[in-house]
């Protein structure tokens, strides 16, 4: 065995600390039957709680026992409120009881269940009928017993949590036969007081003690009450009819006050948060808009509005330049004009030249023609002269012939001549003037 050996006290101490630290084992409710009940002279109660299978030893110290309305006896079936721990001296597991009450169904329990069933069936517990509890009540009604711990709990809780609210208090009996009637009356007064919320509280007790809160009339009064009512009757384990019919049930009077009120610190914090949210949200909204405005402010148009004109200026310059085309127009016209002018001048001089040539040609032709004509006529005349010369009758004279003529003409016969006649004899180079001396006729002729 290599394991460490511990002392029993160490083990017990360890066990005790384990159990004490377990929250599930603290303030638990346990049911069972009492046996071996001892009321010690110190005021502490010692007993055993058992059921069919198990048993546990219990102690209820005098501080708790003295407050208990119930006095236990062996054989009673009870419900305990207790913390679990180990009693070190005996090493025994023990319940340290803080509250005790009778369990089991007695007469009152039967009545309670019947009334609960009846009211439930009649709709008095209907959730839809329950009024809403105001979040920030400024006028809180409190109905409770005078000088009770429950009242003190409520008042101190209110002072701590929500001192702003006005407390309207009506003290009533909270136990006994007259209690429920007083409470009904108090609720009526509270309605007149116009409180925002009404607390109906009472400390813990036996079912008999709390019986006033199981009253049918009170339940109906609470049901019809126009003010939201929070009940805090008894401790956690105690449930009464008013708890079912009220608008909200708290486990304790303190709990009722806590439900009815906000914690002022929470509210202050909440308020601060809301304020921060307000400022933040508003700032971011304004900042967003500021960005928008700055965007506009920084737009080209507003910083250098000249850009609005630039485009138009360029257009104007462009068109103004294009207007200068007008000089091109005159240039073109000038070119056209010069072309026409040159054209017609050259046409005229061409014409003059052409006509001059024609005249010259004609003049030349006339000259030539006329010259040729002369030539021709000259030649013709020349040939005539030649022919005339060739056929000239005077040619025979060269050969020695002569022509004799008298005054009557050429003499071809002697008969034409008389002696004594004067005759002209023509020779090739002149004439002889002769006189006929005699005549001789030739025979044969």
């Amino acid at each position, binding site marked *: 065995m290599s394991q460490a050996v511990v002392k029993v006290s160490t083990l017990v101490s360890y066990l005790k600390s384990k159990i004490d630290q377990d929250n599930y084992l603290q303030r638990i409710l346990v049911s069972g039957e009492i046996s071996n009940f001892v009321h010690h002279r110190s005021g502490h109660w010692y007993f055993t709680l058992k059921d069919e299978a198990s048993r546990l030893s219990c102690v209820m110290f005098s501080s708790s026992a003295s407050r208990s309305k119930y006095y236990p006896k062996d054989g009673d079936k009870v419900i305990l409120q207790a913390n679990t721990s180990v009693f070190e001296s005996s090493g025994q597991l023990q319940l340290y009881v803080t509250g005790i009450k009778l369990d089991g169904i007695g007469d009152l329990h039967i009545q309670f269940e019947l009334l609960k069933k009846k009211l439930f069936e009649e709709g008095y517990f209907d959730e839809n009928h329950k009024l809403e509890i105001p979040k920030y009540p400024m006028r809180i009604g409190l109905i409770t017993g005078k000088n009770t711990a429950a009242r003190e709990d409520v008042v101190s809780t209110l002072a701590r949590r929500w001192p702003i609210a006005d407390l309207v208090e009506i003290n009533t009996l909270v136990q006994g036969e007259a209690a429920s009637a007083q409470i009904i009356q108090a609720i009526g007064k509270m309605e007149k007081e116009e409180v925002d919320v009404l607390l109906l509280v009472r400390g813990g007790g036996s079912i008999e003690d709390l019986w006033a809160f199981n009253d049918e009339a009170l339940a109906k009064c609470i049901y019809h009450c126009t003010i939201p009512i929070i009940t805090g009757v008894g401790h956690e384990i105690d449930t009464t009819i008013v708890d079912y019919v009220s608008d909200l049930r708290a486990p304790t009077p303190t709990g009722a006050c806590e439900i009815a009120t906000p914690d002022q610190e929470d509210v202050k914090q909440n308020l601060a948060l*809301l304020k921060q949210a307000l400022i933040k949200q*508003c700032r971011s909204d304004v900042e967003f808009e500021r960005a928008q405005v700055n965007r506009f402010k920084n737009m080209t148009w507003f910083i250098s509005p000249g850009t609005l004109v630039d485009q138009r200026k360029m257009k104007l310059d462009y068109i103004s330049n294009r207007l200068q085309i007008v000089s091109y127009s005159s240039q073109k016209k000038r070119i056209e004009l010069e072309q026409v002018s040159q054209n017609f001048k050259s046409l005229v001089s061409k014409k003059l030249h052409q006509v001059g040539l024609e005249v010259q040609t004609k003049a030349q032709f006339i000259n030539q023609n006329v010259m040729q004509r002369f030539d021709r006529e000259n030649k013709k005349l020349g040939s005539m002269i030649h022919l005339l010369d060739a056929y000239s009758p005077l040619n025979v004279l060269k050969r020695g012939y002569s022509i004799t003529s008298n005054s009557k003409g050429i003499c071809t016969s002697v008969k034409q001549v008389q002696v004594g006649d004067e005759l002209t004899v023509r020779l090739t180079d002149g004439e002889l003037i002769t006189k006929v001396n005699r005549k001789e006729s030739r025979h044969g002729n």
Partner: protein
Amino acid sequence: MATKKTFEQSMERLNIIVDLLEKNEQPLDETIKLFEEGLGLVQECDKQLKGFEKKIDELASKKVEE
């Protein structure tokens, strides 16, 4: 204005205002108005909360009388 409202109405209104501002759907003018109103409500509520000390004294005395 806010003084006539109950604390609860003021708080409710404040929450609505913060919601509206968070949604940010209202025009800027409205935002400013809401902001102003909200801040007024905060101050009003704050004032009420701070006024409790005086009141607790009154309460204490009242209790004694009963």
